């Protein structure tokens, strides 16, 4: 079945440095939909950005990601980390054969230090 693999555990970096959280996926279907959700402490997950177009950069709230079907990747990036970016980030996958079923990765904790 479909699966998502993310950078495991905790990523710690200093404010102002670039952020890159890895996400790779496995699916037998040719039209995957990829999502990044963010969950701040004591809040619920909310959508950060999404894409289904190969090789097209998508951006939201300073974060960006590009779906690369050739490498099955959808890495989340930001040029300069802020303290408020500290959160749990989930990469998620669905596809057009069953768009209702969304598979989440295990999540990556990002901790930004001053």
């Amino acid at each position, binding site marked *: *079945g479909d699966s998502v693999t993310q950078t495991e*555990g905790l990523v710690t970096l200093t404010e102002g440095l670039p952020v890159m959280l890895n996400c790779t996926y496995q699916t037998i279907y040719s039209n995957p*939909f990829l*999502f990044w*959700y963010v969950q701040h402490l004591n809040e*619920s*997950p*909310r*959508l950060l950005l*999404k894409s*289904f177009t190969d090789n097209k950069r998508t951006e939201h709230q300073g974060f960006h990601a590009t779906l690369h079907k050739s490498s099955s990747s959808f890495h989340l990036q930001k040029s300069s980390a802020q303290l408020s970016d500290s959160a749990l980030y*989930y990469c*998620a996958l*669905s596809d*057009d054969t069953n*768009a*209702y*079923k*969304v*598979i*989440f*990765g*295990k*999540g990556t904790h990002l901790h930004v230090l001053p």
Partner: protein
Amino acid sequence: GGIITQTPKFLIGQEGQKLTLKCQQNFNHDTMYWYRQDSGKGLRLIYYSITENDLQKGDLSEGYDASREKKSSFSLTVTSAQKNEMAVFLCASSIGQNYAEQFFGPGTRLTVL
């Protein structure tokens, strides 16, 4: 806009007990979901319902039942609580189309003594 309400916020049960969690949404969304959130294991899909009267098993459905009573509500039952189990159960909804955003409720935190 809309809101998802989950009750109860905290649920404490005994081993072997049957426990029910409830979710209500006023987005008028067709599709609803139940996820279990455990530290280090991510969000795992338990059940989802594409539309009213529909029920689909997720990857973690064993040990759970679900019921979509009407379009706005979706319940989850833990059929036999496991001792020392601790997890957060998240309800979500979406418009049920390709590529649709999911909106999440605040969660129910379960502790089994």
